[in-house]
């Protein structure tokens, strides 16, 4: 569903994290948020899903979320945030338990597990799974509530390069069959160039929109342009990333 960010600013005490962000995201679009560390991209994602209250501005959705969407704004977390005492199946079912009957729940969970390739792992505990499989559980748990807006907070950052590659393929395959609006925070430029329709480049603290890069090729035909897009995005953030890297943090 179309998502509108209007003049959103955020302060952590005296520190300005975001400064007057304006952004319209179209229905079914995938927008990547990138920027040097400390640019407030995760803060913005927190505000988008209602986990953080912005100091100023507002976020709104055009129209009402579909009736079968149990949790219109749904996150996929960098650290997976799985409950270690629940099996894969029970983790995916968590957000359905207080809303759906057992039969409906079972049906939805089974479909989500099948879509993410977890059907054989339903009874496993998170600690028994690889990082990639754990994040697939995180993705299944997000899909099972049929989100209108899917908010991904560096979902592949905790994974090794090979697993990340596999998960990117999975995400593209899943997104071809599911219609949510997606906001994807990452510091990995390849992920941004491969997965997004538009890449929003934020500046250093306080985060402002520095540039919005549209990636015109459909995701399936991108292989050739990805290196060039990565170079372009890197040119936009390189100097600020270097400054951020040399910054001494307050004690």
């Amino acid at each position, binding site marked *: 569903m179309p998502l509108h960010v209007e003049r959103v600013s955020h302060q952590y005490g005296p520190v300005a994290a975001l400064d007057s962000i304006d952004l319209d995201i179209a229905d079914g679009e995938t927008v990547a948020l990138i920027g040097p560390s400390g640019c407030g991209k995760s803060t913005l994602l927190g505000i988008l*899903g209602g*986990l953080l209250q912005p100091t100023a501005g507002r976020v709104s959705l055009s129209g009402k979320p579909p009736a079968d969407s*149990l*949790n219109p*704004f*749904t*996150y996929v*977390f960098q*650290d997976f*945030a799985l*409950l*270690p*005492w*629940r099996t894969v199946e029970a983790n995916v079912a*968590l*957000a359905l*338990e*207080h809303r759906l009957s057992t039969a409906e729940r079972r049906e939805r969970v089974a479909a989500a597990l099948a879509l993410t390739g977890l059907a054989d792992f339903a009874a496993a*505990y998170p*600690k028994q799974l690889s990082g990639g499989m754990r994040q697939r559980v995180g993705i299944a*748990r997000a899909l099972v*509530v049929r989100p209108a807006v899917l908010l991904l907070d560096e979902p592949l950052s905790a994974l090794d390069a090979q697993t990340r590659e596999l998960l990117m393929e999975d995400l593209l395959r899943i997104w071809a069959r599911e219609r949510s609006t997606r906001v994807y925070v990452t510091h990995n430029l390849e992920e941004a160039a491969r997965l997004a329709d538009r890449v929003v480049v934020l500046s250093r603290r306080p985060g402002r929109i520095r540039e919005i890069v549209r990636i015109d090729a459909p995701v399936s035909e991108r292989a050739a342009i990805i290196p060039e897009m990565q170079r372009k995005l890197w040119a936009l953030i390189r100097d600020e990333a270097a400054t951020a890297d040399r910054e001494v943090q307050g004690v």
Partner: protein
Amino acid sequence: MSERQPVPFRGGGFAPAPRRVLPWVVFAVLIALWQAASNTGLLPPLFMPSPLSVVKALVALWQDGTLVGHVTASLGRIIPGWLIGTAAGLAVGLAMGIFSAARAAGIPIVSALFPIPKIALLPLLILWFGIGEPSKIATIALGVFFPTTISAYTACDSVPRNLIRMGQSFGLPARDIVAKILLPGAMPGILAGFRISASVALLLVVAAEMIGAQQGIGAFVLTAGSLMQTDQLLAGVVMLSMLGLLIAWGLGMLERAWLKWR
């Protein structure tokens, strides 16, 4: 560059390796040395009876029912005392873990009262409840209450915040966040607290029984000491050790059953 020098290995040691037999061997050797010292007269039987005589005393006391009576009396104080203290401690500790107001109100009181050796309150509790069972049970309950409270709220703190945020982000109602995220996440810390509170209960029951009781292992050990029956005294101590081991074993079973996921 001519001769090939092998790289010397230096990565050994320090990693704990399982040794199944060694603990039993050490245990057996110590007991054997003790027995030998008693046999040769190195240890006077009055001050340090031989292991064999302790075992004999233990068997005799068990068979004539003396020990059963004392153990039953002690358990009759530990069990209700521990249950009352644990129930109250969990109620207060979890409230402090969940509600900031309860925490703000509770922390100064708990911090001020926790360091008091609870046995010092027994005389006061005797004045309140009389010399009988209630004052001893209250002492144990009080001793169990504080460590349980502290372990319950620190266990709530140890639940990763990102899991709570996850629950909120999926729109779980507050009671579901408590029941499905906070409590299961706090369970390991709460069960670890049970080990501490169980040892406190054992300590306090012995101390309370030494101050004013006819029955109970503490009273039995004290009486045996006054009568210089050191073999019986040590038999009582061995009984306490076995009771402690039994409790630890039971809690271990509970942890394995409830915390399979770890």
